[in-house]
């Protein structure tokens, strides 16, 4: 299978244009900015001051300890502890919404017929995926920079530590969201609209655990089926305790498998 990097790059840049030049993209950006302003201002900014305040220290220790998150309290930049807790759940959910229309509406409208005369279906799946990933990466980076600024405003000596931890967490968040975007790529092959893709994803995440619980009840084990769900590793990486490479292998393997399935379906699809 021959893949042209220039065509993929062309698809990627067009996805960026979709976010930054279309009304719908700008609306999504505005919503994102508003939500993150609230998160940063009210939660990250204030909550971190609570964490470092002596009167709340013992309470925070107890609370974070109960949740198994005591490692977060040892971070030199307290803002990032809150940022991490919010972002690790926010970005996967946000990715499901923002990346819900990778090609389903183009397929429904017939626009893909113009595009597939100029690019292979593999390039299309990959290009659109990378485009969406780049968008989420930009957004993660922006929120991380904002958190760094917040921390540095409080104490300028934290700048270097903030940059370091911000870069590390941004990369980790990106790996976390990767299979979620790939899942939306796969669902885009099965439905005709972004709305239906979101509904399908919601059903997948809502009914999936119920099915697993039933399998567990019937057979006493789930046969590793839980590994099919993007975000399966989030609970184990949340505490940032005993971080091991294998915890990041799962999302990468899930991404590869989901994208391959997406390509398999796309290759056989009638446009």
């Amino acid at each position, binding site marked *: 299978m*021959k893949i*042209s990097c*220039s*065509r993929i790059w*062309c*698809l990627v840049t*067009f996805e960026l*244009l*979709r976010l930054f*030049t*279309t*009304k*719908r993209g700008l609306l999504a950006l505005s919503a994102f900015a508003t939500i993150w302003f609230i998160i940063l201002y009210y939660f990250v900014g204030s909550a971190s001051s609570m964490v470092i305040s002596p009167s709340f220290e013992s309470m925070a220790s107890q609370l974070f300890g109960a949740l198994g998150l005591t490692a977060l309290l040892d971070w030199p930049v307290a803002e990032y502890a809150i940022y991490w807790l919010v972002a690790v759940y926010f970005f996967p959910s946000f990715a499901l919404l923002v990346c819900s229309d990778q090609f389903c509406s*183009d397929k429904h*409208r*017939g*626009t893909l*017929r*113009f*595009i*597939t*005369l*100029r*690019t*292979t*279906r593999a390039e299309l799946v990959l290009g659109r995926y990378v485009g969406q990933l780049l968008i989420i990466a930009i957004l993660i980076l922006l929120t991380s920079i904002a958190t760094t600024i917040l921390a540095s405003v409080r104490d300028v000596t934290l700048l270097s530590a903030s940059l370091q931890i911000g870069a590390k967490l941004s990369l980790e968040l990106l790996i976390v969201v990767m299979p979620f975007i790939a899942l939306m790529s796969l669902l885009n092959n099965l439905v005709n609209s972004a709305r239906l893709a979101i509904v399908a994803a919601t059903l997948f995440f809502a009914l999936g655990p119920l099915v697993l619980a039933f399998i567990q009840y019937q057979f006493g084990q789930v046969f590793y089926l839980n590994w099919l769900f993007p975000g399966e590793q989030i609970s184990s990486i949340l505490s940032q305790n005993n971080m091991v490479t294998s915890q990041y292998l799962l999302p990468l393997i899930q991404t590869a498998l989901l994208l391959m399935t997406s390509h398999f379906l796309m290759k*056989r699809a*009638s*446009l």
Partner: protein
Amino acid sequence: MSLIIDVQHVTKRYGDKTALNKVEFSLEKGAPVALVGPNGAGKTTLFSLLCGYIQPSSGKISILGHAPGNSALFGRLSALPQDAQLDPRFTIAMQLNFYARLQGMSNKLAKKDTARVLDMVGLSDALTSLPSELSHGMRKRATIAQALLGSPEIVMLDEATAGLDPANAREIRAIVSEHASDVNFILSSHDLSELERLCDQVLYLDNGQLKQHQTLNNNDSAGFLTLRMKQIYSEIIPVILQIPGVSQVAMTQDKEYLLTISNEQGKLSIEMNLLTALASNNWSYTQLINGKTLENQLF
């Protein structure tokens, strides 16, 4: 002559329904080819197969020596698929520019080519318009423009002039005629007179089967004249039959007569005698066609 399209025993089934049944033909480089047939005959299915939008249930298709959808065809084969629409969120120029860049053009060249093709279809003023701001006909012309980007060797236009006003339909026909020497056009339309004017070959599909594959203006049509009158004249058939060389006259449809010529060599004198007879009876005609119309050839 080089082979541009080779279709061998192609069958396409949708569940129990057979849309195309063992279709077989090959096309060589040359004048535009017409793809005709009634609704549901399989024209759009054949177009979709040639463009690689769908896969055949059986059979083999080769376009310029490659399978449909092969990257070697990018920029060499273009099409106006029926009912396909541009993205309503981007301006016409942005989308055409994107397609041109996918075809391998630089950003600068893509912009230049976008302006060129939009000018060809008379949409120079619509560069920065969104598809939703354009009329149906203008949107159709914009999609025709995307098919002309770069220098394609094969352009397939499915119902290109359907929904266009006469002036714009004429413009599109002019574009096809103008580029017919460099580009191999394959046109599907229900307007047989349009196809007659533009095409040299006809593929006639009916009920999923290729019924005819013929060259227009061939010898089968040589022994005929088609006469179209302004109104019905009850005495016209006996008068025409009196002209030496005319063996038969049939009214093919309202105000249209098909004359069978027994002596092809004397066709010129027959035409002159016919026109003289019409003039002497004060009968007005609208058209005298050398041969059969495409409609009369096919049906």
